[in-house]
């Protein structure tokens, strides 16, 4: 039989492969490199690297300058923030542990000291800003696309209320986020927090639990939270499934599932559980 042996990937190959045309990863990389080196023969590898980077960056500016590219950014940042919400909710449900806040305080310490979580947190802030500014940019473009509106508009039969008011709902959520970050994130980072230690544990924990409880004992503060969770619910009811459509994932078999996850998990369950926290601590304080 006509077999030969590829010295690079150490596999036997049949006659259908040319002797130096083995389709192993090593060979393919070499072929690609050689092609690029022929194109820029003078400065070998460094030129190759910078060229690839230059090509990639022009592709991305071209892509993300277009209306569709902007929507990809909107969808991907939004869906990332959706996954963040799940993690945030699961962590915060420890407020209900009934142990005087020990689980929650240990968790808060972990979230502010683990380097991996810290990196993800900054990615998260970046995505929030991206989502906000991209949304603003798109809204301004949309305004320009129809400077003179209709005298009579009846869109109630053709689209959902939340889908038409994503900007307003998003702005409400942003206002909430600023208040929320000021009360908890800012205090945790820069505030003068009470500390607490637990038996058999040398670490002095910042008592985040007390800060949360005291904040939610104020009626107006809890009310703001509950109202904001309604805004979040309507925003995600449209936003979650819309994100999939924007990146081109629409399939008759899977889209109904995505839509029900958007409705029941992100539109009802998650906002309801978040809203339960201020309600619980407010009622407890009465």
């Amino acid at each position: 039989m006509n077999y030969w042996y590829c010295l690079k990937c150490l596999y036997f190959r049949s006659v259908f492969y040319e002797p130096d045309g083995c389709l192993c990863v090593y060979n393919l990389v070499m072929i690609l490199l050689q092609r690029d080196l022929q194109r820029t023969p003078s400065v070998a590898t460094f030129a190759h690297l910078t060229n690839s980077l230059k090509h990639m960056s022009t592709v991305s500016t071209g892509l993300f300058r277009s209306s569709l590219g902007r929507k990809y950014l909107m969808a991907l940042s939004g869906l990332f923030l959706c996954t963040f919400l799940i993690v945030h909710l699961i962590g915060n449900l420890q407020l209900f542990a009934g142990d005087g806040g020990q689980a929650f305080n240990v968790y808060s310490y972990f979230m502010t000291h683990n380097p991996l979580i810290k990196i993800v947190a900054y990615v998260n802030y970046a995505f929030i800003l991206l989502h906000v500014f991209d949304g603003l940019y798109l809204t301004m473009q949309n305004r320009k696309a129809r400077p003179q509106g209709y005298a009579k508009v009846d869109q109630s039969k053709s689209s959902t209320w939340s889908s038409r008011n994503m900007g307003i709902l998003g702005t409400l959520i942003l206002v909430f986020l600023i208040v929320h970050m000021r009360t908890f994130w800012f205090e945790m980072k820069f505030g003068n927090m009470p500390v607490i230690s637990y038996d058999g544990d040398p670490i002095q924990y910042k008592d985040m639990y007390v800060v949360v409880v005291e904040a939610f004992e104020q009626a107006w503060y809890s009310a703001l939270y509950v109202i904001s969770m309604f805004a979040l619910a309507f925003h995600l009811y449209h936003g979650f499934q819309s994100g999939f459509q924007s990146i081109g994932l629409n399939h008759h078999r899977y889209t109904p599932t995505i839509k029900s996850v958007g409705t029941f998990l992100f539109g009802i369950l998650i906002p309801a559980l978040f809203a339960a926290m201020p309600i619980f601590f407010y009622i407890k304080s009465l």
Partner: protein
Amino acid sequence: MKITLKVWRQQNGKTPGEFKTYQLNDVSEDMSFLEMFDILNDDLVRKQDEPVAFDHDCREGICGMCSMYINGRAHGPMTGTTTCQLHMRHFKDGDTIVVEPWRATAFPIIKDLMVDRSAFDRVIQAGGFVSVNTGNAVDANSVPIPKQDADKAFDAAACIGCGACVATCKNASAMLFVSAKVSQLALLPQGQPERHIRVKKMVEIMDAEGFGNCTNTGACEVECPKEISLENIARMNRDYLVANIAD
């Protein structure tokens, strides 16, 4: 039937327009919406007034010319119909009907209810074709195409380019139109060689013409007289992403 019409009158793109109210006393239920406008214009001509300018052509729902924004909805209250296929029996005696032109930066008003939709033509010119000399018609089934693909391509090709999607979209986005024109070729073997370059060029011109961005409200799908599906928009989103990564 007695109908009160509030119609947008505008001399040309440069002068500001306004609503004018007309009273029609003898409208038949069997008339189409455009036939009612014929009666109105007949009245106006007899009174030595200027008739209302509006686009119309085939009057059987396939040409896509009859652009009217009726009572806050593109092509009026019925779904899956054009204005010429909308009949007066869907209105009540004594109704007041507000009629406006499509409103979008990309569709400048020519006169009254007529708008310039040549932005759509320029999108098509950018890539909505297969640039190969096809020669004689080949035998049917010489290129095998699965039935589902053929059906989907045909559904996309049903788009008549009326502009109702742009008119009804809160952002004046042309995504449904462009995606239908991208999909009808992307689904067929003949469209594959230019699949990537086509979607890139058509989206580029769509953006340059000043249409808005898609927020997936789905209003276009509901108001489209040919009931083009949002799946086409997803297909275009997907193709554009793949085309930009691959090329």
